[in-house]
């Protein structure tokens, strides 16, 4: 209650939008539409693939027409949510805390979301989806950023070293995610190749460790064939064979494979960056009731299973595992394997205060952005 009150005060302070506001107490009628910001592949209405559709039945049931804007990076999602034009967002851990701190999202009354009860307990009330024990959204699913490789080029690469080494057999045809958060991938590379640096968490880098990561990225430049910001750019390059190795999401691999690309994906040995996503509701939502209905729908066993399989991630709803088309999906993506996910470093926003608890100053995210801009300039 105190938090809800605080939220309301904070809202009042930044302009007093009275059309959204604090946590809903009860659900009303749908407003006829809902505007979403989502990762590619999270909101599918059958237009990409007629068999991939968990939007049409939602629209028919609730009368809420779904409009979706694809966010290509967490930064872009934060920027879009700040516009106030959207009702809900599928935010990764490197966006959630910024959205909460910026009062761009509101606490969610999980009592109004019946499917929340079936969400894995291990995903609820985590650092990245709650504040002071109050949920700021519903967990969507989690996964690891994968390596995609061309199957013509030989055996599957097993190490992240192939992404960074100047003598990589894939030199010149390497595809890198064009976002500041990719610096964490360089940190994971350093964890494997320069243990002396003492990196334990790729998002908690002091200045020395950070400089080493940037140096690794500078060296990597000579072997990079593509920096992809739009998932469709990487998909096209994979289909044409102009890139043969890259950081990727399973959904891109699925789409390119469907168009005949000779590729496959793998998880490298050194641990990987990944995500644990949360559906959140905007503090300026014009369609809050439809937004709640959407949150409940997207974590319902059937829709959640559909997204998990299409995007290539572990579902958040414990009942989803029984509904996937591939009966082994949850095993393949380690849905309940906490041991596996301990090797996956979820995207999170680096702060001055080191996230691994060390008593030194870490490089904050704004510096990550500046360094990445300069690297790419």
């Amino acid at each position, binding site marked *: 209650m105190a938090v809800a009150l605080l939220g309301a005060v904070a809202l009042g302070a930044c302009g007093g939008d009275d059309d959204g506001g604090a946590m809903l107490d009860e659900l009303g009628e749908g407003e006829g539409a809902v505007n979403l910001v989502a990762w590619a592949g999270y909101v599918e209405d059958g237009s990409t693939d007629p068999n991939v559709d968990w939007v049409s039945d939602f629209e028919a049931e609730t009368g809420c027409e779904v409009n979706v804007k694809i966010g290509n*990076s967490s*930064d*872009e999602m*934060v*920027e879009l949510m*700040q516009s106030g034009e959207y009702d809900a967002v599928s935010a990764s851990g490197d966006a959630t*805390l*910024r959205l909460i*701190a*910026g009062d*761009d999202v509101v606490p969610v009354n999980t009592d109004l979301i019946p499917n929340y009860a079936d969400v894995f307990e291990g995903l609820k009330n985590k650092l990245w989806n709650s504040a002071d024990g109050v949920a700021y959204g519903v967990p969507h699913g989690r996964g690891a950023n994968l390596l995609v490789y061309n199957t013509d080029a030989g055996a599957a690469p097993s190490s992240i070293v192939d992404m960074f080494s100047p003598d990589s057999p894939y030199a010149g045809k390497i595809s890198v995610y064009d976002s*500041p958060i990719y610096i964490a991938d360089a940190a994971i590379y350093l964890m494997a190749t320069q243990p002396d640096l003492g990196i334990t968490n790729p998002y908690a880098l002091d200045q020395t460790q950070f400089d080493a990561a940037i140096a690794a990225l500078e060296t990597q430049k000579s072997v*990079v*064939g*593509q*920096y992809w910001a739009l998932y469709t750019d990487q998909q096209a390059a994979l289909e*044409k*064979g*102009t890139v043969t190795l890259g950081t990727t999401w399973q959904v891109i691999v699925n789409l390119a494979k469907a168009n005949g690309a000779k590729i496959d994906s793998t998880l490298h040995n050194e641990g990987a960056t990944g995500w644990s996503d949360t559906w959140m509701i905007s503090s300026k939502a014009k369609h809050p009731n439809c937004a709640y209905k959407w949150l409940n729908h997207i974590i319902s066993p059937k829709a959640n299973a559909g997204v998990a399989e299409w995007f290539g991630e572990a579902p958040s709803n414990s009942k989803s595992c029984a509904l996937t088309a591939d009966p082994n999906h949850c095993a393949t993506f380690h849905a309940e394997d906490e041991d596996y996910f301990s090797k996956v470093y979820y995207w999170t*926003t680096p*702060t001055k205060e080191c996230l691994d608890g060390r008593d030194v100053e870490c490089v*904050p*995210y*704004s510096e990550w*952005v*500046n360094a990445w*801009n*300069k*690297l*790419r*300039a």
Partner: protein
Amino acid sequence: MGERLEQAPRVAESNRVNAGRGRPRSAFALWGLLSAPLAWLLVVYVGSLALLVVSAFFKLDDFTGKPTTDLTGSNLVEAFTQSEYVSLVARSVAVAIAATVICFLLAMPTALYIARLASRRTRRGLVVALILPLWTGYLVKAFALRAVLEPGSEYGEGGFMKNLVGWSPGFGYTAVVLTLAYLWFPYMLLPIYAGLERMPSSLLDASADLGAGSLRTFRLVMLPLLIPSIAAGSIFTFSLSLGDYITVKIVGGTAQLIGNIIERALLAPNQPLAAAFTLWPMLIMVAYLAVMGRAGAFKNL
């Protein structure tokens, strides 16, 4: 003939009315007429530019990525002193100049042929053919060139152009320059063509009578007279190239120009830094316009 004579006094009469008694009322009417466009120009155009300049001084909240109303000069310092950004700007200017030079080298002989050598019928056909691409979408043209330059495999190893002419720049800065030149070519051609059309034949005849060959006439008579037209055309090609960031995304591969870094900063989200970056092209364009103004680019406006 008779009709024109009859009308002349009436025109004079109305001019006198406007110049004399009617002045206060017409000044009022003039302001009434101009106030809407002037307001539009001031509020929407100058106003938004001013806002852009001001927002370059806003301090960013590091964590939420929201601009605050605290003021700081650090965005400008960042954008104007970091060597990575200065070299990026230099590269962008070089690309814009290269595209402009290519446009000029292609447009000059083309315009000369159309305006001076082609028969009247051919001329009309050629002018239409050269204006026609302006009616095609920018993206359509850029993606068409992407298909030509792409080093993908549908047309064999190395791509379409490689297999057709044996050489292809692939994606990168060369591809960006070629694409920009292709996109903006008509903007260089039309002013030069207009300048050539306006040029009195008597000057060229006089030059020939005085014994100058065609090359000499071109160098000493035509080119000096065409400088304002060339300058006007180059303003189009240079400014459009300098501000472009979509072509880079389509055919640039890993290349980046000033527009890309502005977009990058905006999506970061770091709006103040993006605003600081936009001052670069603004200042460059002011300088460029000043130089071209001296060359007479605005004489015929």
